[in-house]
């Protein structure tokens, strides 16, 4: 059976982390989000995968190539304009000659869920899960295991069951989908509702498997800590004497941990890094490739991406530092619980530091207030305190 993986969207709510990569290529644990879907499909023997790409498609294609490294065969289909998930699926139509699966590329999911879906096939089957915030998703109304209604982002609470976006479809569904998309109804859930109305047997299968969604940047931190906890600990590189490693710590090839450094896992450190002397890293932190962290700095519960350099005496907590950003000494992120107003909705976050976009340069002695974002390609001069969000390409003096 073939599977269509939807990976064309940017994920605008994750900006600035998506200025040069699609949401699906953000890393959680030791791999990009999209790889969770690919790995799950391979685990249950689905090898022929069509990825619908769009925004920054080259990032996906150069990473997954033809899939051989991941044990699958991947073909790519481009969705030129990101109109909606139904339209995205239709882009893959020429590759589909029989029944197929649809899997979102931007969720963390596991093979057991796909296996469950394959065991409960109907004319259309949708995997459902319970959510604390159903209003953000396609909500399902079930009668037994029959789906009665699917409503995208309902204003009022109907049920706690939402669609995971993971579907099994009989091939003939595509004809219906084509009509829907032709009529300007681009979302897949709309076509599924039409299928219900036209008498398709649409089954809703509740799953207890691991299904996680990333909506905002700080979701990456909580997902990362969930995923890293049971990650493997693999140690390559050089660990100088006087370094203390506690709990699962994985270290990539060519990395050097200098004397006096204390690392408490779960922590994952990529290849070619130089950390220390006297650096402290606390759970749950992921550090990418080719990163340096200078003496007397502390990093906790953070994501540090490739090619980042962090100056000495810095304190980075509950934060995300994107690729190629360089930070001089005495950089402090204040991490506090925060109530943020986003899209006219108040969101309570347990603890949040800062998000810094890619290729930004931060001078000495910069302090960032909790919950503030610094965009990509910025320059922040020495001694500044950041109290407001900084847009991309800004210069802060």
């Amino acid at each position, binding site marked *: 059976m073939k599977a269509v993986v939807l990976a064309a969207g940017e994920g605008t709510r994750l900006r600035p982390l998506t200025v040069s990569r699609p949401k699906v290529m953000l890393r959680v644990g030791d791999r990009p989000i999209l790889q969770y879907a690919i790995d799950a499909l391979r685990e249950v023997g689905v090898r022929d995968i069509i990825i619908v790409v769009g925004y920054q498609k080259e990032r996906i294609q150069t990473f997954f190539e033809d899939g051989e490294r991941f044990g699958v065969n*991947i073909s790519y289909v481009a969705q030129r304009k990101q109109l909606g998930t139904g339209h995205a699926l239709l882009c893959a139509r020429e590759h589909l000659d029989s029944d197929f699966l649809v899997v979102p590329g931007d969720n963390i999911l596991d093979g057991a869920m796909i296996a469950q879906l394959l065991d409960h096939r109907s004319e259309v089957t949708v995997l459902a899960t319970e959510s604390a915030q159903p209003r953000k998703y396609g909500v399902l109304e079930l009668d037994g295991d029959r789906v009665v209604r699917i409503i995208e982002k309902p204003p009022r609470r109907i049920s706690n069951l939402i669609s995971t976006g993971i579907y099994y479809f009989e091939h003939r569904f595509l004809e219906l989908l084509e009509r829907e998309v032709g009529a300007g109804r681009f979302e897949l859930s709309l076509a599924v509702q039409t299928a219900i109305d036209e008498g398709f047997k649409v089954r809703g299968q509740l799953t207890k498997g691991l299904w996680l969604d990333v909506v905002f940047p700080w979701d990456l931190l909580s997902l990362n800590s969930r995923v890293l906890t049971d990650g493997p600990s693999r140690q390559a590189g050089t660990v100088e004497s006087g370094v203390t490693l506690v709990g699962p710590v994985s270290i990539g090839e060519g990395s*050097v941990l200098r004397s006096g450094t204390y690392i408490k896992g779960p922590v994952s450190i990529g290849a*070619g890094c130089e950390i220390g002397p006297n650096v402290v890293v606390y759970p749950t932190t992921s550090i990418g490739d080719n990163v340096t962290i200078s003496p007397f700095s502390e990093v906790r519960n953070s994501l540090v991406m490739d090619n980042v350099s962090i100056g000495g005496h810095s304190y980075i907590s509950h934060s995300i530092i994107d690729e190629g950003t360089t930070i001089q000494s005495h950089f402090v992120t204040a991490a506090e619980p925060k109530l943020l107003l986003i899209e006219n909705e108040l969101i309570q976050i347990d603890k949040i530091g800062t998000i810094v976009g890619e290729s930004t340069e931060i001078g000495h002695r910069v302090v960032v207030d909790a919950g503030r974002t610094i965009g990509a390609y910025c320059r922040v001069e020495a001694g500044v305190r950041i109290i407001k969000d900084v847009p991309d390409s800004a210069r802060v003096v």
Partner: protein
Amino acid sequence: MCGIVGYTGNRQALGLLVEGLKRLEYRGYDSAGVVVIGGDGLNLQKAKGMISELEKRLQPAEGTTGLAHTRWATHGRPSDENAHPFLDCTGRMAMVHNGIIENFQELRERLVAKGHRFTSDTDTETIVHLIESHYKGDLVAAVRKACKELRGTYAIAVLHADHPGTLVAARFENPLVVGVSAEGEALLASDVTPLLPYTNDFTFLEDGDVVELKGGAFRITDLAGKRVERPTHHVDWSVEDAQKGGFEHFMLKEIFEQPHAILQSMMGRISDEALEAIAPKNVDKVKIVACGTSYHASLIGKYALEAIAGLDTTVEMSSEYRYSNLARESALVIAVTQSGETIDTISALREAKRRGTRTVAISNVVGSTITREAHDTIYTRAGPEIGVAATKTFTTQLVALYLLAFALGRRQGSLGAEELRRLREELRKLPAKVQQVLNSHEAIKAAAARLKDVRDVYFIGRNINYPAALEGALKLKEISYIHAEGYPAGELKHGPIALLDARTPVVAIVVDDAVRSKMISNIGEVSARDAPVYAVGYEDDLELAKVVDVLLPIPRTDPLFSPVVAVVALQLLAYYVALMRGCSIDKPRNLAKSVTVE
């Protein structure tokens, strides 16, 4: 250059050989052929043109041992007759060859006098008749005797209907690699790519080696018949590395792979200890030898070595190096070649060693000839590059040269620890900056649309971006066939400016360095002749934007590293121009990926 593939095992060879040839297609060729040993003698098929041409005409043939070849013409035009494999007079022995035989006229006359019948004008055919003349039932012995009489360069592979299940091959100055699969198949090829589906462990033959492949194993002997052992190299590439992954062309894929490749090339190498490990001692002068794109990388390396390490550095085309007569003019020779098989560069390296000079190779291929001969090697780790136009191997060569400059700078004491820290941080940002250039590919595409119908383009730059201009011109001419020349901007008024008019655009590389104001006045000279000016420059350079027609934006970096980002923009420009002109981008006419003949 020519490509060889040989297979002996338990499966039908014909299809496997053609698949293998396709993996060598990137080397460039103008005809192709294949031979298998069948139940009733040899089945030989060959055709001028693309491998697809051969495939179209291919008749099914039984046989589990065979050879295949792609030919890049040196002696004799591309044609069906001149394509390899060649047969001997009996039609029971077939052979393929890479390289050039220098004494073939003399051998040929002798063989014709003895009654051998020739069917082509090639030097290759001489070899098969020569082996035939020595053949008394022992194929290996016959090949060995023939090799002793040959002068020139070769990698040859032979099979004989009397020995089904056996291949014999020999090498002198042309690459040949052998490997065996877990299923008991033995293979040989010009480089590792056709063998990747079978194994990741390879043995590279050395000059004077003769190898016999039989029964899922191989045995190497020297020309005297003595057994020799060659090490096995593990090459970490996968088959999928050589596939297109949804990109329209390998070249585009390889351009987009650059952020990752550049990261790989510096990974684990920029710490103080790592730099110290690669720094050669007692160097007072440096010479870099290279050809083609690698030569342009070397020119940039020269500026970097002079600026960072304070070392007097010269760059020489490999093919000219040996004609310089000074016995020992430099303390260090750096040989730069992507494939590690470029014969001119290998010869220059050998000459340097003969003169007693220390040598460092910069290469992309683990275990390649140059890496076995140089004292030290820095691998560029770019992964396989299939597009004939070099892209990611160029930018990673630059990283290797920068690292060497850092290392030598520290060793010489001319690079302070604080300055190194600053440069290192800047270098670390390069992958993300290259990504930024890639992000603006739509803007570059728009510029390409305006350039696509011109006849000539001049590229200008100064200082470290002068070689970047040369590389920009090379990329454009090699894939789009538009006439393009790179010039130092200051040279323009000493001649080429006479050629400028409204139909001859100029591409200028302008960054924020000491020569910026000079570049701006050169642009003024160009504009005064009505020539449209395209500039590769910093995205926030408003002054520059005002004086040029089109600005291809690149992000700010240290001027020393600016050629990396500038060249990526020029690669995309060349790619899109060629695409709009409908050119054969991955396999431009007359060009070969790795030039293994002189």
